[in-house]
């Protein structure tokens, strides 16, 4: 079970994401933004950071990196993809996920332990949780306010595509949305960082590990069925 973690120029949390993958029992595979293939990985994580210096818009340049062409194609074919923070922004810019992430309404960088409620535990990345479960992750962003038009928000709510919701609203996200998924449930974008909550030694606990164990379980199940 191999999970690719993409490093863009300016990625910060790629090594933490690789460590979380390892703790979940999978083998992390480093992918480079200039790669033209995904090295036969079973899933991909787009980590947090400031890809391409956040120039133009967060994620706007990364979206056109060579590796993203491969990720977009594979994601449409069902490959599980998790975008965390900047990775979420990249998934929105790639139109794999609806909406966009704009500057926090209070204009300050948010950096805190944040409780979120899991609203959909049937995606590739959330099966280790129960619906309604409250977990503590780490939120650290300047541009984490999720926005979409009313029609899209209603559609997301109606189809159960809100994956996680903030308890409280730390950045002005519409309907307190912390994470969403695509129609198929294989692509998930999440603003808070589960990879910073996988060990008791550093971070607010191990609540975040479930995102990574979920995809391992999902993929093992898929392989057994195949």
């Amino acid at each position, binding site marked *: 079970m191999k999970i690719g973690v993409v490093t863009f120029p300016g990625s910060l949390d790629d090594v933490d994401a690789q460590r979380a993958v390892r703790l979940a029992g999978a083998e992390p595979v480093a992918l480079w933004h200039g790669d033209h293939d995904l090295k036969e990985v079973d899933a991909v994580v787009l980590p947090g950071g400031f890809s391409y210096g956040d120039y133009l818009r967060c994620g*706007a340049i990364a979206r056109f990196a060579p590796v993203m062409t491969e990720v977009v194609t594979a994601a449409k074919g069902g490959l599980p993809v998790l975008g965390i923070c900047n990775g979420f922004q990249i998934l929105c810019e790639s139109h794999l996920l609806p909406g*966009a992430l704009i500057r926090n309404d209070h204009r300050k960088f948010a950096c805190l332990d944040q409780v979120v409620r899991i609203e959909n535990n049937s995606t590739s990345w959330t099966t280790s949780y129960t619906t309604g479960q409250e977990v503590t992750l780490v939120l650290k962003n300047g541009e984490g306010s999720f926005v979409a*038009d009313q029609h899209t928000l209603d559609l997301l709510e109606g189809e159960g595509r809100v994956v996680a919701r903030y308890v409280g609203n730390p950045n002005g996200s519409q309907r307190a949305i912390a994470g969403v998924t695509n129609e198929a449930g294989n692509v998930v974008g999440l603003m808070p960082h589960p990879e910073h909550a996988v060990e008791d030694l550093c971070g607010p606990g191990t609540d975040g590990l479930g995102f990574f164990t979920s995809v391992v379980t999902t993929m093992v199940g898929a392989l057994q069925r195949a």
Partner: protein
Amino acid sequence: MARVVVDVMPKPEILDPQGKAVQGALPRLGFEGVSEVRQGKRFELELEGEATEERLAQVHEMAATLLSNPVIEDYAVRVVS
């Protein structure tokens, strides 16, 4: 050579925290009577050759795919010289 300007602005219904910060700073400097500030981006493109209809169509495509994010921003294209 032709110079084409692409103006990108946050959509009216999208909160613009940067514009709000600027608006908040104006009264502190003694400038009164500004009821709203919206902050956008201006791109100046130097085109090789004339700004033909075909070239301008390409600029629109650039604006829609990279220079702006249509989910949160509107753009306008104009030829300045």
